[in-house]
């Protein structure tokens, strides 16, 4: 193994002149050996995806590679045209993406898509292709390969689609696999499985993996070496163990510090009992779906007999994976959806039984923190002003109150005259919080309010929420899929599985001793949580192999 599988020297990609900075990526150099995993870590906009796409020859037309060399197994590839790249893609250099649904052709059967990769690159023997497909399906642990290979992408789950992508990417045993946030869109339990499969496949084929991620938990599980990117520059590079335990660059330290650990940030125990701000009793909601005129009706029981009580001034977490019904529960409580049965008591008023007209004046008491609740054609001042004037403020008073709200969430009054798209994700989340607070609600529902944010920003928003809770005595129902986030901010949490609450209690107790097996599997799936799954250095692994 003389030549590196992949070697990048002084890679520089220019941004268009109107961009925020001159280069999307500047003077990036790294090397990747066979069987090694290099994690490229950074926040969104740090240029990590640009580097990955540049190596694949997939830069959009607006970005230009201005300097640097890319060597694949010792051979320069940066100057190859589209035809040249087409020859090496899949065969020697492969990529998997964040959203497999968009990467797969929705009109082609899975088996045809995998076999196409092999046929295009000259594997002609149909029997050989078929055998290889079944071998791959087994390696990525697709259940019932014969059925799945005949299925269409939309019939598979997100995790299965990503397995198919991995099978396609590794069908021709490429030297290098580039993985661009391949598990970000997946639930934690699925993420853990996908990471394990990538590791196994890598060991089987000796592939060098360039893994792009923003999640340090994932890094600790999969990386041999780490490269940290900030604003297009590599600020730190080294062995995973070193970077994770002894980060040198302040930016790396900030990133690692911002990763919420799964230690419930318990704080002083709330003195019980508190008066209930929200009581939910036997709440149920089912959706009946009919896909076609003649197809059978499918009934989805999204929420099944949920009971919970949230005390005044409490932050109560609802944890669950996608499809667990946690979002439906939130929408039922704010009454964006009508429950089939059950009661929702907010300050002793049963919201579940009211019709839309009776509900309207009460809506201000229960607000939701959305991810993006902004009419793109209105300024922040108009958006906040509309909500405030409904509460009886005149124009001048509304503007004053809007300024106060913005100040509360850490923004200045200059924001009032600007449009939503002029703000960053973190700022928008702050404004969203201000908007929700504008009606002086008794109860706030936060549905994945911080999930789309980078870790550093996420930590800031969580701190802000905790601070506002203390100052304003807010009651918050905090819906999330991320146990670490829930543990950091919630006083109590409930775990949802298939529409039911399977466990609830204080986070410290639940995380330390989960009573329900599903909770235990959720905790075990948190990337970087299980020290046994941590990565051993590549030399040790190879020594073990040679010893065998």
């Amino acid at each position, binding site marked *: 193994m003389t030549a590196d599988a992949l070697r990048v020297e002084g890679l520089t990609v220019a941004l268009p002149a109107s961009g925020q900075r001159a280069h999307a990526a500047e003077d990036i150099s790294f090397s990747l050996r066979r069987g090694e995993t290099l994690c490229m870590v950074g926040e969104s906009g740090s240029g990590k995806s640009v580097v990955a796409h540049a190596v694949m020859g997939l830069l959009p037309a607006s970005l230009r590679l201005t300097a640097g060399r890319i060597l694949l197994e010792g051979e320069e590839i940066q100057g190859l045209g589209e035809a040249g790249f087409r020859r090496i893609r899949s065969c020697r250099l492969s990529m998997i993406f964040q959203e497999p649904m968009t990467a797969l052709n929705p009109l082609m059967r899975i088996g045809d898509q995998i076999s196409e990769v092999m046929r295009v690159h000259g594997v002609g023997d149909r029997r050989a292709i078929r055998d290889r497909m079944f071998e791959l399906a087994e390696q990525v642990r697709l259940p019932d390969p014969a059925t799945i290979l005949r299925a269409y992408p939309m019939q598979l789950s997100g995790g299965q689609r990503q397995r198919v992508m991995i099978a396609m990417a590794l069908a021709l045993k490429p030297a290098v696999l580039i993985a661009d946030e391949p598990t970000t869109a997946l639930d934690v339990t699925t993420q853990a499985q996908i990471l394990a499969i990538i590791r196994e496949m890598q060991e089987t084929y000796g592939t060098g993996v360039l893994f792009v991620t923003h999640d340090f938990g994932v890094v600790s599980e999969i990386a041999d070496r780490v490269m940290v990117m900030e604003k297009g520059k590599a600020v730190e590079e080294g062995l995973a163990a070193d970077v994770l335990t002894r980060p040198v660059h302040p930016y790396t330290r900030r990133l690692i510090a911002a990763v919420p650990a799964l230690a419930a940030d318990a704080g002083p125990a709330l003195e019980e009992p508190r008066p209930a701000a929200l009581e939910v009793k036997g709440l149920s909601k089912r959706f009946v779906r009919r896909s076609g005129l003649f197809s059978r009706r499918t009934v989805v029981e999204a929420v099944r007999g949920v009971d919970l009580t949230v005390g005044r001034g409490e932050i109560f977490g609802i944890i669950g994976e996608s499809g667990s019904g946690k979002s439906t529960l939130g929408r039922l409580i704010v009454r964006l959806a009508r429950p089939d049965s059950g009661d929702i008591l907010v300050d002793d008023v049963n919201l579940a039984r009211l019709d839309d007209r009776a509900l309207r004046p009460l809506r201000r008491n229960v*607000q939701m923190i959305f991810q993006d609740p902004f009419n793109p054609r209105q300024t922040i001042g108009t958006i906040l002003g509309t909500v405030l004037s409904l509460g009886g403020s005149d124009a001048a008073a509304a503007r004053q109150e809007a300024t106060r709200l913005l100040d509360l969430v850490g923004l200045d009054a200059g924001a009032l005259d600007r449009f939503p798209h002029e703000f960053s994700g973190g700022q928008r989340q702050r404004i969203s919080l201000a908007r929700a607070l504008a009606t002086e609600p008794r109860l706030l529902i936060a549905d994945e309010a911080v999930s789309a944010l980078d870790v550093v920003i996420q930590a800031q928003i969580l701190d802000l929420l905790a601070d506002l809770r203390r100052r304003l005595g807010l009651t918050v129902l905090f819906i999330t899929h991320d146990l670490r986030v829930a543990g950091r901010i919630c006083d109590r949490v409930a775990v949802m599985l298939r529409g039911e609450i399977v466990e609830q209690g204080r986070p410290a107790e639940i995380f330390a001793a989960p009573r329900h097996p599903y909770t235990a599997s959720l905790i075990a799936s948190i990337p970087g949580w299980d020290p046994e799954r941590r990565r051993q250095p590549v030399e040790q692994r190879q020594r073990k192999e040679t010893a065998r």
Partner: protein
Amino acid sequence: MRRLAARLPRRDIVFVASAAILLVVVAMALSAPLVFPGGPWEVVGPPMARPLSDGFLLGTDTIGRSLLSGIFYGARVSLLVGIVATALPFLLGMLVGAVAGYYGGVVDDALMRLTELFQTVPHFMLALVLVAILTPSIGSIIIAISVVSWPPVARLVRGEFLTLRNREFVEAAVLSGRGDASIILREILPNALGPIVVMASLMVATAILLEAAISFIGLGDPNLMSWGYMVGASRTVLRTAWWVSVMPGLAVFLTVLAINFLGEALNEALNPRSALGTMR
């Protein structure tokens, strides 16, 4: 609005020519009584005078009326029908589409079945029958055109509303306790307007064409000179005096073409994604 103006292809020859043609038509409509105080029905010369003869720029028709005068007055009818018979179905379609898309469920089903009912009947036939029943007049022509052209607007508006209805800013507005009318008018409608405006600009052209067709058949308003009537009245002499029907026909053709091109330009300007080159 200024941003929109900046996006229009002001250097494109087709766009400039279309705008110029439309301006000329508007100018003709406005100035008709000044230029031809005698009105379009006045006999001013020998029948079927050739264009550019005896001081008649476009010649005269079968009984010696000035064709140019007819085209000036015809522009008034065409523009009136184009504007009013677009505005009415536009408002009706918007109302039906907004209500159907916003409330959904049974309301949506009922309104959409009604819309489909109108769409399945051949437009021109329905319009003709309506004009015949209501007795030919400019009012009944406008009503007939409106009745046949609102369904596409309703469907488009409904589609826009269906997607916008589930956007977070609309749900946030619902949660702040606002009434339906306020949410529809202030939150959803401004965001749905782009494609609707483009459709309306094309509907103007369709309305003008429909009016011309109705008048051609002889169901036009007997008191108003219209391009369609001029073509229809002179079609028997097409072989001996081609200009009598070709001149007003050309007027319809150019006006409709110009409006179509302007609608297209408006579409490109309002919908930057449709323009190639700005992608990604």
